[in-house]
């Protein structure tokens, strides 16, 4: 259920909806075109290389390096309770890039462009409410359920 994905979700319906189910089970998935084999992260249902409309998910290792980052002090609706928060953009080992919060295993003074990071699934469950997301953490960090989204 893609509506689970993100603190605030803007696009509940997508052909790659199962991404969020995998994430809930602790797996971060990219997509592979079933015709030409092109990889994509974030996943996409339709191949940008050959225009084929068939794809399969594959699990990414979550290993990557930090490309750039910013500490956001002025937040949009839905994120004001987290201010300030740091958004990182990382190059993934297998393919593509990822945007996510830099998590608490990396203290602010240790954040450095080029540092190795691990994409870690986060699952937040509260009664009927499920939210899944991921953070950028120190290599070796394993995924976990979490009791807050900050």
């Amino acid at each position: 259920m893609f509506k689970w994905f993100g603190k605030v979700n803007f696009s509940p319906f997508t052909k790659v909806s199962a991404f969020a189910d995998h994430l809930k089970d602790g797996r971060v998935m990219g997509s592979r075109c079933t015709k030409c084999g092109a990889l994509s992260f974030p996943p996409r249902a339709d191949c940008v290389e050959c225009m084929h409309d068939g794809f399969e998910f594959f699990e990414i290792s979550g290993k990557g390096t930090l490309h750039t980052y910013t500490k956001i002090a002025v937040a949009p609706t839905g994120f004001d309770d987290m201010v300030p928060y740091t958004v990182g953009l990382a190059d993934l080992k297998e393919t593509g890039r990822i945007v996510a919060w830099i998590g608490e295993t990396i203290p602010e003074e240790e954040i450095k462009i080029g540092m190795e990071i691990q994409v870690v699934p986060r699952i937040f469950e509260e009664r009927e409410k499920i939210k899944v997301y991921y953070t950028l953490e120190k290599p070796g960090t394993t995924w976990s359920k979490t009791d807050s989204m900050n």
Partner: protein
Amino acid sequence: MARVGIIGIGHAAFGRRSDATVQELAFEAFRAAMNDAGIGRSDIDASVIGSVPEYHKQRSLAGVVQEYLGLNPKPTWLTEVACASGCAAVRTGWMSIMAGVHRVVAIVGCQKMTELETPEILALMGRVGEVQWESIFGTTFPGYYAMFARRHMHEFGTTHEQMLSVAVKNHFYGAKNNYAMFRKEITIEKARDSDPVASPLQVFDCCANADGAACVILADEERAKALCKKPVIWLTGMGCATSSMSVLRRPNLVGLPSAQIAAAEAYEMAGVKPTDINVAEVHDCFTIAEIMACEDLGFCKKGDGGKLIADRQTYIGGKIPVNLDGGLKAKGHPVGATGVSMTVEIAKQLRGEAGERQVPNARIGLTHNVGGIGQYTFVQILRRE
């Protein structure tokens, strides 16, 4: 090849315009442009409105503007590509004239941004980026440019001080522009003391939402020569390109591919080189954006944009004067109006009407209007014969 010329220019004051609706702002700019051209509404074949609809309560804006300008039953339509909607309107007007469909077209960029309540602004702000994979982490417009800034610093040693120098320059010139929102010079100390927005960017790295409008009247060569008593300013290089919506799909985060491609296209069409440009208006929505623009346009090597401003080469008398109207930073950024406002400023410079901001003997000028985080870029080269 057929040619399209600017025969009239008009500008409304930018800022918090609590005295006017968006169509009233459009009228100010349109009326000024019509007076400047010395023509009447019967001479106009069509209008193109550059604006971003989500800021307005009024839906289908082109209709209300067309009525208020008194241009019914002439055709009109809206162009929207975020902050580049203005130059998209210029390009659309140019296209319609080049195609021989219309002969004289009014291009009206107009926007009212201060009517929205803060919660509405904050909600819009959260959907600037690609919403499926990025906005869910609270990414913001300054946040994206901050990530470019951080990477630019990392790769080229650009400093935040150099970025703030862009703001100092643009306020220096904005203080001399009657239409600017902030008509006050600032010091680097003041800029450095401003509040953080998205590190390394602070308040003085960011342009401000504003209300405003600008208008240019375009005509084919024959009509331009017949109608225009002032020097005609010709649109001689019209470049336009896109880059991925998602920053995750960009080749790098130190420039805008759309700007580089649009620039190459514009230079080729105009038959000029970056060193031939006498004056430029670039899209400084954030200070780092002006630095990257100077590089993407070939005013300096990639990575040398910080040095260019530090050496004061973008002031009058430098290698390439940039944003002599104060830029988005000091003039304000009523998104749909911005590209048309750039076009007005360059036309003014090429006519020699820019007063104390005038670049002596400017003959060739350039506008660089970016939508979003470089998803769309228009580069347009204007020339006086």
